[in-house]
């Protein structure tokens, strides 16, 4: 028996026996999530996804991205949660408007931050959850098992919330979108207006995971061997 046809028949059998697991989800709402910021909307982030923004340098603009995201979210009257991995969030830098619809969760270590993220994604009431791990040491982040991220993926998909994680190095396995902020800002950027700084923010796309939620990939075609 040819292996390929066996796999094909097996897939067809599974599809027949468990039709509900193979149904395409009816798109009741626009799958794309709009942040209200030019630097993120260009990447077409989808709802129910886990996304990572890597900030290799501490002054590469991670806090600037966070500020822009929170203020844009507030302008849209949307609620959001910020899980602050090392309690480094500065409300003064964001302003009153940006903080008005923000739930600030002040953690002190990665374990607390992940548990808080788990609770909020499981809850599903907030459309945007931001996980700020920038100030946590790399070794603590590398110790986070992959299963934790897989669980967060699953929770985000279930709830439809968007998780954006700001990390000092790549830690999230299988993120839907992985961006990087490679550029570091000079000292004279402190004299520039926030609006201008945000327009100069240019995240680079490192990787995008092919979605299976709204675009199915037909993998039943047998691969030629040899």
């Amino acid at each position, binding site marked *: 028996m040819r292996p390929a046809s066996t796999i094909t028949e097996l897939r067809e059998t599974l599809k027949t026996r468990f039709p509900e697991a193979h149904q395409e989800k009816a798109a009741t709402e626009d799958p794309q999530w709009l942040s209200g910021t030019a630097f993120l909307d260009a990447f077409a982030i989808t709802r129910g996804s886990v996304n990572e923004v890597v900030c290799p340098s501490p002054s590469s603009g991670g806090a600037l991205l966070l500020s822009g995201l929170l203020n844009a979210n507030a302008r849209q009257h949307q609620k959001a949660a910020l899980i602050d991995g090392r309690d480094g969030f500065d409300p*003064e830098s964001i302003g009153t408007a940006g903080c008005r619809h923000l739930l600030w969760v002040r953690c002190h270590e990665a374990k607390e931050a992940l548990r808080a993220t788990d609770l909020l994604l499981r809850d599903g009431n*907030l459309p945007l959850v931001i996980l700020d791990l920038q100030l946590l040491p790399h070794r603590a982040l590398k110790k986070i098992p992959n299963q934790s991220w897989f669980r967060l993926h699953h929770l985000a998909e279930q709830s439809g919330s968007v998780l954006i994680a700001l990390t000092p190095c790549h830690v999230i396995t299988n993120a839907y979108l992985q961006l990087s902020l490679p550029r570091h800002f000079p000292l004279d950027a402190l004299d520039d207006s926030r609006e201008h700084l945000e327009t100069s923010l240019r995240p680079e796309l490192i990787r995008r995971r092919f979605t299976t939620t709204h675009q199915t990939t037909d993998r039943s075609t047998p691969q030629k061997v040899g």
Partner: protein
Amino acid sequence: MYAVLRISQCLLQAHLRDESPPASSTPLALLDAALSEAQPKDRGKARVLEINAPARQAGVLPGMTATQAQARCATIHFFQRSAPKERSLQEDLLHCASRFSPDYEDTDPGICTLDLSSHRSLPGGEEALGQELQQSLQNDCRVPGTVGLAGNPELALLAAKLGSPILVLHNDPQQIREALDKHPLEILEPSPGLLEHLRLWGLRQVRDLTRLPREEIHRRLGAEASWLWERGCGQGERLLKLIRPPAVYHQACEFEHAIEQLEPLLFRIHRFLETIAARLEAHYLVARELRITLHFDNQPSFERTFHIPEPSRQVELLFRMLHTALEDFTSEAPIIGLALEAQPTREKKHQWQLFESSLKDPNRFAETLARLEGLLGTHRVGVPELLATHRPDAFKLNPFEEKHPNHKDPTPTGETPSSERATLGLPLKRFRPPRPVEVQMEANPRTGISEPMSFRTASAHEPIRSRSGPWNYSSDWWDRAYWRRQEWDVETARNVLYRLVLEQDHWFLEGIYG
């Protein structure tokens, strides 16, 4: 049609229903006074009010003194009366009645009379109604009870006394005679003097009385005997003193044995919630706030109020909220009392502002917030609000409310004093607490101002490539908590932008810009 719900030995049952019940073979007696509170010479004179079957079999009778009761039954267990428990049982009994008819009377302790004239007719008739009443009595009061249904209140009361557990007496004189005649006169509850008089006449059973002509009974023994005769014939008509219970959504109790574990406390809380939720439902109300109070032996009470984002009366939802909040609760002293109160409100639909979005499930979100607070602590979850001061890092955390109050501008210009930091330059990521550093200063040959050239932390030495400052800040000179600081923005050789702060002659790294 009238119905009577009766709890026999209700004073004793009020004790037994909430406590761990003793074995059914244990003789129990309720005293009219606390043995511990009586004088030593009077302790034996406390009288027995109610007893259970094993105590009766042992020869203990109501009216005996505690000493006499103990002489007849050495293993008898005494209870003292508890007004809160008796009141709670009576409230539950009345609440049970209120679910079947708006017209009911608080007849006596353990007895409630319902006017069912407006009640819908059940497919099974009065018998089915009796079953439903008896089941409801069992569920609501958690004690055994009997139900009597008849055409008038007095006959219904007699039916409840004789029911096992239900007795329905229709308007059939033959049936009424068969039900009542063979019973002793005591079931009609004559006064002791009249009862003695009737016994002297040789009257022992109800039929002995009802066979005599009523007019002669009235002429010889008076109105009371005439009334007794009417009751014996099933003709006792009277008006009910209807009550309208106050809308009280409060339950409290004192524990006979102090509680040290969470489970028994949660059990009691769940019972209270069931009672409160039932009362709210009866008045078409929901709870918008819950206040729980725990009383301790030797320390101040603990009180906490829970705001329910979407007012509800669902027991499980309210219980989950309280359970989550108490999961990590600890105290040094055991709990001796509990009180739970609900603030009622009418169910109403919330109208949102045009561009305002609502939470999908506010109650679930409230539970999530409670879990977050349990995980991290109360003061680490909330909505940040900037304070009207120039002092850096001045904010407070407000509870997350779905509907935010209008934010009041702290200054006449409508801007908080520190808002310019939100529009200029890069945001700061703070170190909390700020990290102490050693800074090497050198005088700038052009300006003569000492400038930071490098700083050393516990783990690294960072040369400074460029710097900007100093900026001097201070509080108002009249401020009692006067502070002053000097800030420098520096860029290290590793292209990291820091904020250095000199405060009280010590240098700190306050945060990273980016």
